C-alpha cells in the first residue's frame, strides 16, 4: 500500500487507494474512511524520525501533535484499540508510559534512542548502552559501571553525572544522555 506524499490535502481517490471498500453508500461511512486515513497518518512511513539535535525533545510527541492538527475537528477514535484504560491514569491494561531519550556518544555522528520505561535500574541502562555503543576493551575487563562516563541533561538544563540520584527520580527528570569518551 503506497501513500502518495503531497502538499495538498488528500482527496477521495486516496480512500480507494487505501483499499477501503467502495460499496459503502452512507455518508457516515465515507466520513469514517476520511477519519481512518488521518488516523493512519500516525504510521511510520509518513513521518521520518530525525536524528539531529532537536531542542523540542521527543520526536514522537511532535508526530502526535501533527495528528491532532490534521484531524480538523473530525472524530477521534474513542476506545480503540480496546485496552482497558484506567480513568485515574495509572498504568493499567497494557498502556506503558513510554520514556524515550536520545543518546549521543562523543565523537560518534549517529545518535540512538533508548526507552527508559523498559529499564528498572542503572545497571540495566548501562547494559543497554554498552550494547548500543560497543567499545574495544584494552585490559579485557568487563565492568559496565566503570566503563562509561555517562552524563545527562535534566529538566533544568543542567548536565549531571548519571548515577547520583535514585533511579526513579532520574528517569523522570532526564531529557537526554551523553556518553563521554
Amino acid at each position, binding site marked *: 500500500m503506497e501513500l502518495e506524499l503531497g502538499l495538498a490535502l488528500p482527496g477521495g481517490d486516496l480512500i480507494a487507494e487505501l483499499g477501503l471498500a467502495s460499496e459503502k453508500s452512507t455518508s457516515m461511512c465515507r466520513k469514517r474512511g476520511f477519519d481512518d486515513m488521518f488516523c493512519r497518518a500516525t504510521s511510520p512511513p509518513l513521518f521520518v524520525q530525525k536524528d539531529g539535535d532537536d531542542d523540542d525533545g521527543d520526536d514522537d510527541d511532535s508526530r502526535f501533535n501533527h495528528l491532532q492538527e490534521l484531524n480538523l475537528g473530525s472524530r477521534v477514535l474513542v476506545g480503540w*484499540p480496546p485496552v482497558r484504560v484506567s480513568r485515574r491514569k495509572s498504568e493499567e491494561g497494557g498502556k506503558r508510559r513510554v520514556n524515550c531519550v536520545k543518546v549521543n556518544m562523543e565523537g560518534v555522528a549517529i545518535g540512538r534512542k533508548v526507552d527508559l520505561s523498559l529499564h528498572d535500574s542503572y545497571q540495566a541502562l548501562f547494559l543497554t548502552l554498552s550494547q548500543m555503543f560497543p567499545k574495544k576493551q584494552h585490559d579485557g575487563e568487563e565492568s559496565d559501571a566503570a566503563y562509561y562516563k555517562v552524563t545527562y541533561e535534566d529538566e533544568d538544563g543542567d548536565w549531571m553525572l548519571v548515577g547520583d540520584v535514585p533511579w526513579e527520580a532520574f528517569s523522570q527528570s532526564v531529557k537526554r544522555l551523553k556518553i563521554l569518551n
Partner: protein
Amino acid sequence: MVRGFGWAAAFPDEVWEHVFSFLAADADRNAVALVCRAWHRIERRSRRRVFVGNCYAVAPAAAVRRFPEVRAAAIKGKPHFADFNLVPTDWGGGAEAWVEAMAEGWPHLEELRLKRMVVSDDCLELIARSFKNFGVLSLVSCDGFSTAGLAAIAANCRSSPVHTSVGLEVAILVSVASEGVNELSLVYLLLSSADIPYLRNLRELDLHENEVEDNCLNWISHFPESFTSLVSLNIACLEGDVNTSVLECLISRCPNLKTLRLNHAMPLEKLVSLLQRAPQLVDVGTSKFSADHHPELFSKLESTFAGFKHLKSLSGIWEAGPTYLPAIYSVCESLTSLNLCYATIQSPELLKFVSRCKNLQRLWVMDLIEDNGLIAVAASCKLLQELRVFPSDPYGVAPPISLTEHGLVAISAGCLMLHSVLYFCRQMTNAALLTIANNRPNLTCFRLCIIEPHTPDYISQEPLDAGFSAIVESCKDLRRLSLSGLLTDRVFKSIGASANRLEMLSVAFAGDSDAGLHYILSGCKNLRKLEIRDCPFGDKALLDNASKLETMRSLWMSSCSVTLGACRQLALKMPRLNVEVIDERRGRPLESWPDDFPVEKLYIYRTVAGPRSDTPPCVWTV
C-alpha cells in the same frame, strides 16, 4: 394411568431436591422448572446459586421472591464496551436496588459477585450489616466506592468457632450455667450475641480492576484482631499506600490464606518482609518489582520466593526489570498461571523467565515478548491453554516491536492444549489464520485485535475474510470471537453459517452493508452477546431480525447506521426488549427528534422488568 403429572407426587419433595442437587448448570435447572408445577416449586426452593447476566433483565425483588434460598449470587451491570470508555459514566448499573432486595430477602447470602456495577459506600455498609454468614465478596470492574466503604466491610468481620447464631447461644448457655452466673447475666449474654448480624467468616475479598477512591488510608486496620478466616485477599487495584505492618499482622494471623494480591504502591523491601510471613501462599500478586540494585534485597527476595512450596499463580510484577526478575526463577517450574502484563521488561529477560515455566497453563504477557519469545514459549510451555498478548504501546508512539503473526502461528503449532487466545498485533495474513485454524480446531475463544482499523492481509492486500472464515469453520466449539482488520460482508456469511456454538461476538470497523449484520442475526444459533462499533450496519438488518434479539442477552451498536425511526419500530414490535438510545451530545428530548435521526449509541437487551427507572439524561428507552 396417573392424570397429568401426578407422578411427581410419587416421591417426597426431598427426593426430588436431592436429584436436582446434581444439576449445577442454570440451563438444566431452568428446564427442570418447566416440567410441572411441583418441580417448579421444588426447584425454586432449592436453587442455591443465581447468575444475573444483565442486572436490568429482571427486577431484584422478583428474583429474590422466586428463589428464596439463594446462597451465592453473581450480577453483571454495564455492557462490556464500558471497559473502553464507550458507555457514559452515568449510564446506570447501580447496585443499590439489588443489594437492598438481597438484604431483605436473602439474609443467609454467603457469596456476592458484582461485575461492572456502580457500588456505593452505602451499599458496602449495607452488605456489611445484612448477611450473617457472608463469606465471599468479589467486585470486578466496579466503581463508585472508596476505601471508607472497604473499612466498613473490614470492621464488620468476625471469626467465630461456631457457625450458626443458635450454636453460639447454646455454647454461651452451657459455659455460663457451669459457672453459676445468675439469670440476668445469662439473658444479657444471649441478647448481645444474637442481635447484631455481622460478617462471620469472610473468606474472600476480591477487588479486581475497580476504580476505588482513596479516602481512608488505614482501612485494613479495621479488620478486628479476632478475624482470622481470610483465605483470599486481592487489593491489586488500589492506588494508595497500604499500611504494611497492619497487613503483616493480618497475614500472620490468617493461617488459611492462599491468595494474596497486593497493589502497586508497596516498595519491594516491604513486599519481601510481608511475603516471608506466608510461605503457604498459592497465588501471589506482587507490588512494584523494581528498585535500585541491592545485593541484600536480591538475596532476601530470592530466599522468600524459594520458600514458596505451593505457589501456582504469579501476577503483579509491575515495572519489573532485568535486575530483580532472576531472583524468582525458583518458582517458575511450579507456576501454572503467570500474569506479566504490567512488567515492562524486554524480550531477552522475558524469554529467560517464561521459558523456565514448563507447567504454565495460562500466560498473560506484553507484546514485548516478541515473536522470538513466543517461539520459545511454544517450545517450552507444552501445557499452555490460554494466551493473552497485550500491546505495550497501543497508540503507536514508541519504536515498533517485533511481534507479528508468526508468534501466534508458532504458539498454535507448539501448544496442543491451547484453547483461548487474545492477541494484539499490527499485521496479519489469511495464510497465518488458516494455519492457526488448522493447527488448533479446539479453540473456544479467539480474540484478535489488529491495532490499525481496516488493515488487510499485508502480503496479498486482500481482506481477512478467508482467514477468519477458516477459524469459524475449523473451530467447531468456538464460543467467543473478536474480529479486526479489513473485513467484508463475506466473513459474516461464514460466521452466520458455521459458528453454531458462538455465544459472544465483537465486531469493529468491518463489513460493507446490512447484509453483514443480517448474516449474523439470522445464523449463530447460540449467540448471546453481540457488540458492534463503527460498522455500516443499519435499520433493515435490525428490523428483519427483531425476534432474534429476544433470544440474546444484549446487543450493543455504536457509530453504525441505525436511525431513530428503526429503534421506535423495534421497540413497538418487541415489548420485551429495552431499546436504549444513548446520546451525550443533544440537549432536546428524544421525542422531538425525527425518524431519520442517526443513533450514535444503541443498547438493546431483553428484560421481563420493563423499562428501567434510573436512566440518566443521556439515555432514552424508546
